[in-house]
């Protein structure tokens, strides 16, 4: 059947598409489109009601225009109208438009949901499928809320058509992935598992995907699927190539279903039941055997489908990691693929072998392919394949082949694609450290790295070599000699100057005995590079020079002359100038003894996880460092710095929550057990050492501070973090923005939400309070695509607040990338009662323009409420005790919001007091009690709220033991109703 005869009456659409195609220029196309848009707009707006066909045609044109890449801002309503058409094609176009131009306009979603609801109830399978597709395509939470409960019913209903079941299964899967909480588990789950036995292969195929997803969250509930999946798989694998009719794909029976079943099994450990396990192993063996059989077709589709199953089988074997025989067979199979003429297979074999390399059973077998892999690294024409080869070499590396692999990788680096150089550098650095048997080899390797790919050697790499050399005195002399030689090269990379400068400054004395590297020679060699270097390197070299004065008094005069030169003492760069001035003075004023103490050799660095490994993980995502993380296949490994194995307390992988957990990851505070029981978040707020005012290093400071010696008076401290700028005093910040009070009021009865939003920035708040302590997370989201610079939010205590409330903040990164979010943690302690909230001053630079505004931080006295339950009798007794006129505050005010008892209740609870039932004789009234907890004192509070629905008024009465508190609480609460 030719396409045109497909009953398509939309001639206007075809004409329009032709017109567009005939446009000679972009401008002509835009002109034609604008003409069409105007036409459609007028049709939609016109007085004459459009019939369904025209609507369909115009909606379809809009869709086409959208797909050309133009924005469409109308027509949604017409598309929604089409949904309720009872003509299939109109409905279909309506649904297509909706799913392509998803719009979260809530009004429309309601209408769309209505149409879907009707179609789902229509019992017309084609309509039902359209509706299910739309839900899956949009997959929004609103849709989930509307339909998540209905779909399981459709899925397991006995009378649902197969096609509907398929759609329902995948639709449910989609909703579950989007919002798992919306999909109710229940009686239907057991019946879903049995869909694995369904007659219809299409239903099984769809159901397996759903089950695979569900069983990850609830493995025990779906355990029965294992044996069903195994028997289904076994039937497919052993069937002849034509048994499954239309589900056979190029002589391979049901490849999609097989792959899915194999993936489902990867959610579980090997089957416990011996019979099931035996059957499964048989299946896996059959698949491996079939790989050796001659192909049934020369078509690439046949071999692809067959190998798709094979690779998934190998994944399952690796996942089980318990059958040595199968693992070795898998490895041999992949070995054959390494030399296959199909690039795709070589790529996949390299990739798959990477995981095999980390199994103790197959590690040795993988190693036998080393030459092939090295060859791939050298000769593959596709960079993606070379990348895989480099990954595999990294994974298969151990002590026995480290020298070979590292030297091959170094050689490859000389010609490697720029895109992967940095990663190769990191890998070489890690392998060299991990498998070094002698340190001279390690030092040589790193210096080679700098020589070959200096631009790609990140700071982590050269910091690391300095750490190791500093910590190992048996390599220091060799290192000094080697860098000295490396620096002789006429052109050497700046990173080499940095490493050389540092090492000679520390250990130059070890080679000073040789006249060829006497102190003056060392100095003039370094100084010959000085003028070509960046400020940071020159600063480092100045530190080396002052160390030289200490190590080699004979160089003092020369070096002082250098420091004294106008180019140093009056250097435009303040850092260089300061160093020159200070070092010059130090060298003239201090006695030799003082100088020797100040410039003493660096103490060893504390052992820690290699920051290079952390960087590689960051680049490649978790699991990338796996080859190094698991010590199991090389238990004898004895790392140079002993620091590669991560220990729990020094894990430095920066996960997004790392800052948050920083408090908890610190050594456990010696908190008394009583307070430890108080709560999850708050226990360690004020006890943990990390909560001390000292600010955690920001990411860009971290590595410098690693180099920073413990002795604070050492001149190297200059290189470390510049002293953090003092927080601005209240006089520096502007007054709160006009809406600040309104924004604050929103948070009196709640702890989480959006505090502030403008076109640039959104600030979200999450907070938790217990007793007199609180912790608040502020989330700053950059809504633009441009980086914010000098981003600095600070908390300010105006007036007396300093003595009433303690707020500790952590510094946030000074740069916030476009679209990124940073968070700031605030630890809050209420010292005594307070009336004004702290201020939050936010400043940053956006595209060069300074931005600054001040908000009120949503911390009000009621946050430290502890609800108190009491009986009516107690309440009245206390109420009477607080009868002094100044202890009571009362307000009568008009309702600003609809008077709803449930809402009122929620607000009062959010305010923090307990709600006491059966106290007030009038059931319409609300009565509450609580204690405000501060460090210095506690304030008991009683409150009563009397709504008058007729007058739309409230009367609110507060009685507390402190007069200002009564008034303040009364004011805060009155604004909420």
């Amino acid at each position, binding site marked *: 059947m030719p396409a045109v005869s*497909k*009953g398509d009456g939309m001639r206007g659409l075809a004409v329009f598409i032709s017109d567009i195609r005939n446009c000679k220029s972009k401008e002509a196309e835009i002109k034609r489109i604008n003409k069409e848009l105007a036409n459609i707009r007028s049709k939609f707006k016109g007085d004459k009601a459009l019939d369904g066909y025209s609507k369909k045609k115009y909606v379809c044109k809009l*869709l086409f225009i959208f*797909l050309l890449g133009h924005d469409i801002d109308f027509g949604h309503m017409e598309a929604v109208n089409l949904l309720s058409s009872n003509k299939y094609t109109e409905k279909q176009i309506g649904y297509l438009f909706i799913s392509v131009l998803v719009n979260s306009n809530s009004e429309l979603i309601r209408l769309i949901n209505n149409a879907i609801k009707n179609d789902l109830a229509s019992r017309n399978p084609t309509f039902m499928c359209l509706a299910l597709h739309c839900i899956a395509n949009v997959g929004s939470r609103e849709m989930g809320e509307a339909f998540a409960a209905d779909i399981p019913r459709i899925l397991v209903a006995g009378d649902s058509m197969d096609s509907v079941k398929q759609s329902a299964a995948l*639709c449910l899967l989609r909703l579950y992935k989007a919002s798992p909480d919306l999909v109710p588990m229940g009686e239907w789950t057991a019946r879903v598992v049995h869909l694995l036995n369904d007659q219809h292969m299409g239903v099984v*195929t769809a159901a397996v995907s759903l089950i695979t997803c569900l069983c990850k969250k609830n493995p025990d509930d779906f355990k029965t699927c294992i044996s069903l999946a195994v028997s289904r798989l076994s039937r497919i694998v052993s069937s002849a190539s034509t048994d499954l009719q239309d589900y056979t794909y190029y002589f391979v029976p049901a490849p999609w*279903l097989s792959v899915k079943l194999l993936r489902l099994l990867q959610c579980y450990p090997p089957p416990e039941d011996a019979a099931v396990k035996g059957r499964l192993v048989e299946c896996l063996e059959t698949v491996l055997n079939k790989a050796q059989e001659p192909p049934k077709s020369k078509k690439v589709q046949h071999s692809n489908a067959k190998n*798709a199953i094979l690779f998934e089988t190998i994944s399952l074997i690796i996942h089980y990691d318990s059958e040595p025989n199968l693992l070795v067979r898998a490895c041999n199979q992949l070995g054959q693929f390494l030399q296959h003429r199909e690039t*795709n297979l070589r790529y996949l074999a390299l990739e798959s072998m990477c995981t095999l390399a980390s199994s103790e059973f197959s590690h040795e077998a993988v190693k036998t392919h080393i030459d092939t892999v090295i060859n791939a690294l050298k000769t593959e024409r596709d960079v993606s394949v070379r990348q895989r080869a480099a990954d595999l070499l990294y994974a298969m590396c151990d002590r026995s082949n480290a020298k070979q692999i590292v030297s091959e990788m170094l050689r490859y680096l000389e010609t490697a694609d720029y895109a992967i150089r940095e990663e190769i550098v990191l890998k070489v650095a890690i392998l060299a450290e991990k498998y070094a048997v002698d340190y001279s080899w390690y030092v040589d390797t790193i210096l080679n790295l700098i020589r070959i790919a200096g631009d790609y050697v990140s700071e982590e790499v050269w910091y690391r070599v300095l750490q190791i050399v500093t910590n190992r005195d048996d390599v220091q002399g060799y290192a000094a000699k080697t860098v000295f030689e490396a620096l002789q090269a006429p052109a050497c990379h700046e990173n080499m100057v940095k490493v050389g400068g540092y090492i000679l400054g520390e250990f130059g004395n070890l080679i000073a005995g040789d006249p060829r590297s006497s102190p003056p020679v060392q100095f003039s060699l370094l100084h010959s590079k000085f003028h070509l270097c960046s400020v940071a390197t020159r600063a480092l070299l100045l530190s080396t020079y002052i160390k030289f004065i200490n190590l080699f008094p004979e160089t003092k005069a020369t070096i002082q002359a250098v420091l004294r030169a106008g180019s140093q003492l009056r250097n435009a760069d303040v850092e260089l100038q300061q160093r020159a001035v200070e070092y010059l003075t130090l060298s003239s004023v201090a006695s030799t003894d003082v100088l020797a103490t100040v410039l003493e050799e660096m103490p060893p660095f504390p052992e820690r996880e290699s920051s290079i490994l952390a960087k590689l993980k960051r680049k490649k995502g978790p699991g990338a460092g796996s080859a190094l993380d698991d010590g199991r296949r090389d238990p004898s490994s004895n790392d140079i710095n002993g620091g590669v194995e991560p220990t729990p307390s020094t894990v430095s992988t920066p996960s997004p929550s790392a800052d948050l957990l920083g408090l908890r990851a610190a050594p456990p505070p010696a908190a008394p057990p009583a307070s430890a029981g108080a709560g999850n978040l708050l226990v360690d707020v004020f006890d943990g050492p990390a909560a001390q005012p000292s600010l955690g290093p920001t990411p860009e400071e971290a590595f410098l501070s690693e180099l920073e010696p413990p002795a604070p008076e050492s001149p190297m401290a200059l290189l470390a973090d510049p002293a953090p700028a003092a927080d601005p005093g209240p006089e520096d910040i502007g007054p709160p923005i006009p809406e600040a009070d309104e924004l604050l009021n929103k948070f009196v009865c709640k702890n989480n939400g959006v505090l502030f939003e403008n076109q640039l920035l959104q600030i979200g708040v999450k907070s938790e309070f217990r007793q007199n302590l609180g912790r608040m997370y502020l989330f700053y989201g950059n809504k633009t695509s441009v980086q914010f610079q000098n981003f600095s939010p600070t908390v300010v205590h105006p007036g007396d607040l300093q003595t009433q409330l303690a707020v500790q903040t952590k510094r946030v990164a000074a740069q916030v990338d476009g679209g990124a979010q940073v968070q700031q943690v605030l630890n809050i302690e209420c010292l005594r009662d307070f009336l004004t909230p702290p201020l939050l001053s936010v400043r940053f630079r956006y595209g060069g323009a300074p931005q600054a505004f001040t908000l009120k931080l949503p911390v009000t006295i009621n946050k430290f409420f502890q609800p108190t339950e009491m009986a009516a009798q107690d309440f009245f007794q206390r109420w009477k005790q607080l009868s002094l006129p100044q202890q009571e505050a009362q307000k009568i005010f008009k309702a600003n919001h609809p008077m709803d008892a449930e809402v009122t209740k929620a607000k009062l609870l959010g305010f923090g007091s307990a709600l006491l039932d059966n106290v007030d004789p009038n059931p319409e009234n609300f009565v509450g009690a609580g204690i405000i907890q501060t460090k210095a004192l506690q304030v008991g509070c009683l409150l009563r709220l009397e709504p008058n629905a007729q007058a739309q008024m409230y009367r609110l009465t507060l009685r507390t033991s402190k007069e200002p508190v009564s008034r303040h609480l009364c004011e805060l609460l009155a604004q909420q109703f």
Partner: protein
Amino acid sequence: MLEESREELMRFMLLFSRQGKLRLQKWYLATSDKERKKMVRELMQVVLARKPKMCSFLEWRDLKVVYKRYASLYFCCAIEGQDNELITLELIHRYVELLDKYFGSVCELDIIFNFEKAYFILDEFLMGGDVQDTSKKSVLKAIEQADLLQEEDESPRSVLEEMGLA
């Protein structure tokens, strides 16, 4: 555990021409319009720059891209790193077969002029990025049924409408 990172979900499918014209796009994960355009532009550039005989898989951003060229059109799927690349490649092929069977030796023009049909066929075959039915017969049957419904719809329309009765 491996399972944690496994998310078998195709992120999107793109069809574009050698000249870099987008012919079909299907997104299986909510993505803003701006981001979509950026990703399409970027990915087209990467794929079009590749030479024939190169591997059909490439790592791109945090995804794996599986692509294949059929005549003047590139078919391109983005999947998660853990997904099965070969079966995705065959999924593309099965879709091409479906288009071919429906249009009768399909070419780029068919997809341009009948883009809505290309979407319908894709929807019958994949749902939410997952294979719904791999049988060519089942998928085509569903589509042809719809065409039949369409023809039934169409004929009374013209009569009634011409008389101004609809």
